[in-house]
């Protein structure tokens, strides 16, 4: 981990030392607003419980994002939308009176969060960008009927998670209508799934925490400029998670 952090910092440092023709122009402070829609599909390998049982969190969301840009170097915004999530593999809750297995159940909930972006170095057609994103899935619960041959009961499964992604991207904008970018990603995910049951006089509750399996990932993508007011951003992430994000922005 330390070596990787060092390499990441080394990359930033090396790029920062790129010499002379670094262009630094002083511009008057300007504020602009963008609004966009963001669709994201993610498959994240996770480790569950004390035994680090492997599973995969699949979640996708459609969110509205509103950003405020301060000069050309810093943009921050908020995200809110609708998300679905599910753990792909079975989660067995055996510390309940009647064991429960949750498999492929999808949960629909709100997702909200914040994003920030800073373009802090540029050299010829290259620039360095730092992205930060934090997202929360609002805890959501789902009730199901437990129907045994004679007895019956109710189970409730709750799920929530939050994730933090930090990216350091090298961007190349030497093309006229699009920009490509790529770089390492630092990714954290923390989630919880809880199951409870009541079957006549039997009741119990059990929860599993889960976290990302891999912290380091790779992000790359293309940003298309569709006229003076529209941007389309396509981004993929690998290793820490496999995700595809498509964002369409209107620039006011």
């Amino acid at each position, binding site marked *: *981990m330390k070596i*990787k952090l060092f*390499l*990441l910092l080394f*990359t930033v440092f090396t790029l920062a030392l790129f010499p002379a023709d670094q262009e630094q122009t002083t511009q008057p402070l300007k504020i602009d607003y963008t609004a966009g829609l963001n669709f994201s599909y993610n498959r994240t390998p996770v480790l569950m419980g004390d035994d680090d049982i*492997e599973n995969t969190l699949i979640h996708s969301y459609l969110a509205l994002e509103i950003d405020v840009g301060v000069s050309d170097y810093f943009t921050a915004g908020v995200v809110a939308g609708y998300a679905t999530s599910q753990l792909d593999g*079975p989660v*067995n*809750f*055996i*510390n309940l*009176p*009647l*064991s*429960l*297995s*949750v*498999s*492929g*159940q*999808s949960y629909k909930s709100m997702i909200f969060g914040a994003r920030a972006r800073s373009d802090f170095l540029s050299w*010829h*057609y*290259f620039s360095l960008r730092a992205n930060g994103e934090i997202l929360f899935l609002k805890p959501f619960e789902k009730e*199901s009927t*437990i129907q*045994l*041959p*004679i*007895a019956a009961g109710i*189970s409730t*499964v709750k799920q929530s998670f939050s994730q933090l992604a930090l990216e350091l991207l*090298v961007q*190349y904008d*030497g093309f006229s209508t699009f920009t*490509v970018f*790529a*770089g*390492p*990603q630092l990714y954290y995910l923390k989630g919880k799934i809880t*199951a409870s049951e009541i*079957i*006549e*006089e*039997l009741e119990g509750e059990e929860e599993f925490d889960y976290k990302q399996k*891999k*912290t*380091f*990932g*790779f992000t*790359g993508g293309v940003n298309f400029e569709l006229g003076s007011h529209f941007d389309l951003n396509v981004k993929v992430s*690998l*290793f*820490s998670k496999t995700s595809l994000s498509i964002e369409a922005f209107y620039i006011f």
Partner: protein
Amino acid sequence: MIKKIFIFIGIAVFSLVLAADDGAPLQLEPEQPYVPDRAVIKISNAAVMQMENVKTAGPGKNLKNHPLSMVMSKYTSQIKQLQAARTQDYYIAETIEGCDIETLCRQLRREPFILDASPDYYAVITSTYPNDLYFQYQYALYNTGQVYLPETGLTGTSGSDIKAVDGWDWTRGSESVIIAVIDSGVALDHEDLHSKIVPGYDFVNDDNDPYDDHGHGTFAASIAAAETNNGVGIAGVSWHAGIMPVKVMDKDGYGSYLAISYGMRYSVDNGARVLNLSIGGRSPSFILEDASAYCHGQGAVIAVSAGNTGSAVLYPAAYDDYCLAVAATDANDERPNWSNYGPQVDVAAPGYFVWGADYSPNDPANLNSYHWRSGTSFAAPYVAGAAALVMAYKPFLTNDRIMALIKYTADDVNASEHPGIDDYLGYGRINLQTLLGPYELNDE
């Protein structure tokens, strides 16, 4: 321009490498064990044809002069010896102690003539079918419609069983759970029981030797917890539970309420958490009721046979707050008409021509025999064994919850005649798969 693109690609690749190397090797599953001193090599047919003397190298022959050994000469620090395997084109490399076989295989795969190389992985048995000799007749545990009485050719209905094989996928019990068999004692040296026995007591003769002088207790004990997967005898419901023999019935099959109550109290005071009573009397009495209440209060699950007279449930089975009263079913999930009934019946289990460890005091030379018997006496131990499995698997559950769970997960096998809880089979015939396995929650 091209140079810049190369720089960009270089940085991207660097990022990929950084991301991919996350400290641990990319490994989705735990390492599978393999034979420690062996790698298996597969060479191409074309290569075999090219090799002179290949026909002289039969299975097991040393290939010291085989042309393949020239390739192997590179690996003298890792491979001790190379032999042809029984499968054509396979060769066995006997490795030097401490050799990293997976690394060796990776290297070997790069060699000419070698199509593939692999550690000789160990597989595991994935089924939980025990290998006990008479398991084939134990329809109560696993009913495929097989002949269960070889003398008569009688068969049952597939699936009319307690789903033990499926339940054993989740647990096979624990030595820490002790089933007290409060009965006529146990043949302590029976081959299918002796390793399971923990110290008990004889309340008939008031001594420490609860040896069976009737045979009934031995049979009941074997159903609940015979030594299982040992290649002999029968399979018990709880493979690993201990058996505490508590003798309260004499050689003629009679036992006083007071002796029974002593036996029950002794059991829980000495560590038993499951009590099996394949006994009963028609008259209620505070003697049995108090003993049942005491044992229940100490956290025990008490499985008791309902009786075999086709009439009201016997005591202590009828003490509903404390005991699980067990009725009998047959190999078709039907109730024999002699199985007692009443509102106190909680569940049912097979009790009609079921197999167990037979011991006859009149024929002590024939100690290790097995046979079939009928009666709710032999249905109750299935429930006792099931309770022992739950205790091992879910030690956090109280006895009341275990009793409730056993009832709620039973199959309502007589629903066509008596839907719901009824006086004949209670909640129904117990089902270990539902009892121990998870209830699947899926999107509806």
